[in-house]
């Protein structure tokens, strides 16, 4: 993909989310002019950038949206939810198109019709005013406006012009005359001007615009377009505009009737001094072969003329700026003039001369006193001319995620390589008996270690994103869903500036959506029900993020009907999830926790929103897979809040290394409560389950080797090493062979054959080059349960 398109897609993503966000806020507070302006601006920027690419449908659609927003901005229209819907739909459509562009580098084939129907909708609210506002329509009502004959009419055969004028006069008809001057590079853009011309409907006459001087055959560049066309047609203005819609800047269309042509042919009316032809003459004088250059020079001169005519007080810096541009244009035309130390009148005369004189010769140039060189600059400029240019404002670099991921991988490898040095230091001492070398290696190591740590922190920092990225989709989601459900819901977000690793943010997406949908679907009552319950009719969903040490806590709270613990217990009992005894003894908060049990669904009626029973258990599983935890609190009639606790960063995981049957495994440190060593005699057995009593609490002990199906018989005389972990508030002991240290590792997902081994959550490389398998404790425990 070319970098410009890549830049556009990146910018478009930002603009789209700005527009979405702004529109939703705007719907709530349509009177905020700053908000309207923001959305308008985003749409406008979008349109401007899209025009750089061959995406006419995209430009047209954004243009229609921009026009509607402009009308809102200027107070001509007030935004209603119908318009908001159309605008959102338009930007949704665009989002889809851009996804297509991302993979195919062009718009989908359906873009035209799909865009058109939305354009019609967007233009709808403006339609009432269009007759008075749109000059085209006004013109159509008043009959066509007859232009003045341009002097390029001379391209046509005078006899033919006479005949045509007579015919037009006798029929009171008009004709459109088009001048089409393609630019030199148009062949490279796969344009074929003659092909466009051949499609002009009702073509009456075609003529050529040839270069003043053809280049010699040996210098001829067959890929530079040197010719243009002049044509006359009875086709309507609109048809022509449409046909030439991609090349509007290369097209000039005039509407002429018989009289206008007669006057031109008879020479009664001096033709409008048209830029380009006057310039063509200048080109001839100066032997400049480049018609384009001359055209641009003319445009600059015309602009200068306009500036000078605008008001009487062009002076100071502005006058010298105009003078400089005139000098530059004149120089380009090969007829240099002196414009330094200018006064307005002299300059006006110079410009007029340059513009209108068909054949200016050096002798014709107005006499001016020899002034200082035109390049004289204001002293302010000169004093600072050597200052470095370049940096303006904050430079933000947009980087592909993959590159950052790759960087992170390299940091991981650097850490591994670095750790290798400690092994080398040991070897230097033990195998080669050199303590000095060993110490020097260790010195090297500590230097490297510091750099590697800083590098890792820096890369981690790059990966940090604000939670607002995860929250951004909810205003829209809640708006759409609450409408469908006929509920009124207000969303409050707090702490969206809290930062977390991008992987965490990404992984948060689905669980959050699930929880918010659940709230909307089950938690929140209809306005009527709420009023009966004495609550405000509009419900509220609050999304909060706070950083908590090396974790981030995200809470989704609603003020809905809450969870009825009795109902939940009963349901769980009906479904066979709890025993009759538990039905009696479970506390309310434990009862609420039942919703996380697999297969539990509280909704009596399954709606299409929150799914079909794959519910909270899936949320808990996915959060736990990230090394996080989910808890839920609910008050009947007051609402429910669900709290997700996630590590700030998933890139680096702290694991405790233990070994079993000679092999090392990692266990996430978050889960580890303590390590204990107990004499083997203290291990008890209750109901076929090994247990250990710790401070009065009976903790079940699982033989990790057995759970993992590894042969190992502990030395009966030795103390037992037991790692106590905590899962869902339950303590479990793991019988292991040996404890090792804690290490920071970069966890990689399981690949290949092991990808299906659920008991491992990933692999990590250790400094000595060994691969460490990190245990997924939840799976290990259920394996152990099955093994018994």
């Amino acid at each position, binding site marked *: 993909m070319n970098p*410009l398109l890549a830049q556009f897609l990146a910018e478009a993503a930002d603009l789209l989310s700005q527009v979405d966000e702004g529109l939703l806020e705007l719907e709530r507070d349509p009177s905020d002019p700053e908000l309207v302006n923001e959305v308008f601006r985003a749409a*406008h920027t979008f349109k401007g950038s899209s025009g750089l690419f061959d995406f006419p449908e995209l430009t047209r659609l954004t243009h229609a949206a921009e026009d509607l927003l402009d009308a809102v901005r200027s107070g001509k229209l007030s935004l209603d939810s119908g318009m908001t819907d159309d605008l959102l739909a338009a930007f949704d459509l665009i989002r889809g198109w851009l996804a297509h562009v991302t993979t195919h580098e062009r718009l989908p084939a359906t873009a035209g019709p799909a865009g058109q129907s939305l354009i019609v909708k967007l233009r709808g609210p403006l339609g009432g005013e269009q007759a008075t506002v749109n000059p085209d329509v006004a013109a159509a009502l008043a009959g066509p406006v007859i232009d003045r004959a341009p002097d390029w009419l001379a391209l046509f055969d005078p006899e033919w012009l006479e005949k045509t004028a007579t015919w037009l006069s006798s029929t009171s008809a008009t004709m459109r005359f088009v001048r089409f001057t393609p630019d030199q590079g148009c062949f490279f853009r796969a344009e074929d001007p003659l092909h466009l011309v051949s499609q002009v409907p009702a073509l009456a006459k075609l003529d050529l615009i040839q270069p003043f001087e053809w280049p010699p055959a040996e210098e001829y560049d067959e890929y530079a377009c040197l010719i243009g066309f002049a044509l006359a047609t009875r086709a309507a203005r609109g048809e022509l505009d449409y046909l030439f819609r991609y090349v509007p800047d290369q097209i000039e269309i005039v509407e002429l009737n018989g009289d206008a042509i007669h006057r031109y042919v008879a020479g009664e009316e001096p033709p409008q001094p048209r830029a380009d032809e006057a310039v063509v003459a200048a080109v001839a004088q100066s032997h400049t072969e480049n018609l384009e250059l001359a055209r641009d020079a003319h445009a600059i001169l015309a602009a200068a003329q306009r500036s000078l005519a605008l008001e009487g007080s062009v002076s100071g810096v502005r006058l010298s700026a105009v003078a400089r541009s005139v000098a530059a244009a004149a120089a380009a035309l090969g007829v240099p003039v002196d414009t330094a130390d200018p006064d307005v009148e002299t300059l006006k005369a110079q410009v007029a001369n340059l513009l209108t004189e068909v054949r200016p010769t050096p002798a014709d140039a107005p006499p001016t006193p020899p002034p200082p060189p035109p390049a004289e600059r204001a002293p302010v400029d000169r004093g600072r001319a050597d200052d470095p240019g370049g940096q303006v404002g904050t430079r933000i670099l947009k980087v592909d995620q993959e590159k950052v991921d790759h960087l992170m991988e390299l940091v991981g490898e650097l850490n591994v390589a670095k750790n290798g040095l400690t092994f080398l230091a040991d070897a230097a001492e033990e195998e080669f008996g050199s303590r000095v070398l060993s110490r020097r290696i260790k010195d090297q190591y500590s230097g490297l270690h510091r750099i590697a740590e800083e590098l890792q922190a820096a890369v981690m920092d790059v990966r940090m994103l604000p939670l607002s990225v995860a929250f951004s989709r909810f205003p829209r989601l809640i708006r759409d869903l609450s409408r469908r459900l006929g509920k009124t819901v207000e969303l409050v977000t707090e702490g969206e500036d809290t930062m977390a690793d991008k992987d965490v943010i990404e992984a948060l997406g689905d669980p959050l959506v699930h929880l918010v949908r659940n709230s909307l679907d089950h938690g929140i009552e209809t306005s009527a029900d709420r009023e009966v319950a004495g609550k405000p009719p509009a419900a509220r969903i609050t999304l909060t993020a706070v950083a908590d040490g090396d974790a981030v806590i995200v809470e989704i709270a609603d003020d809905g009907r809450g969870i009825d613990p009795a109902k939940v217990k009963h349901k769980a009992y009906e479904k066979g999830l709890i025993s009759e005894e538990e039905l009696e003894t479970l506390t309310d908060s434990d009862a609420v926790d039942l919703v996380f049990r697999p297969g539990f669904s509280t909704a009596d009626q399954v709606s299409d929103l929150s799914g079909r029973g794959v519910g909270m258990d899936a949320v808990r599983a996915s959060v736990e897979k990230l090394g996080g935890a989910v808890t839920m609190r609910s008050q009947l009639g007051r609402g429910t809040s669900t709290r997700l606790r996630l590590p700030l960063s998933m890139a680096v995981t702290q694991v405790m290394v233990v070994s079993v049957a000679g092999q090392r495994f990692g266990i996430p440190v978050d889960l580890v409560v303590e390590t204990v060593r107990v004499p083997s005699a203290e291990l008890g057995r209750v109901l076929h389950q090994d247990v250990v009593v710790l401070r009065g609490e009976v903790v079940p002990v699982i033989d990790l080797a057995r759970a993992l199906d590894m042969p190992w018989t502990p030395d009966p005389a030795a103390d037992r090493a037991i790692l106590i972990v905590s899962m869902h508030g339950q303590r479990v002991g793991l019988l292991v062979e040996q404890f090792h240290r804690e290490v920071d590792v970069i966890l990689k997902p399981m690949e290949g054959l092991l990808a299906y081994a659920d008991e491992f959550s990933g692999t990590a490389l250790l400094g000595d080059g060994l691969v460490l398998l990190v245990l997924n404790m939840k799976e290990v425990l259920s394996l152990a349960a099955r093994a018994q």
Partner: protein
Amino acid sequence: MTDKRPKVLVVDDAATVRLYHRTLLDNAGFEVAEAANGLEAVEAALSTAFDLFVIDVNMPKMDGYACVETLRSETVGTPAPVLMISTEDRPGDADRAYAAGANLYLVKPVDAERLARVARMLTAGIAA
């Protein structure tokens, strides 16, 4: 010809448009700096003497017209040529640009060759 590349400041709030203008002005032999709005442009112009400005009209914070006016005012006081480039082609827009002190008003998207040509033309006059 001077051996130093002329300095141009590209002012546009759309990063894509900035990249587009940067790329083609860089190819045309300019040293390119960027600013994302009129205010940044004015700040930049206060510390660096630019030989050319390419300025968008519709921008947040300070729009193109106000930006050009400030460039031409006592505050900055640069007579360097200003190209204004807008997405709009409404009657009166060009006049506003000229009244503010721009030297040429062009409508987006500007053909690459044309921009390069005009930019070179306007700065060649200065360097001469």
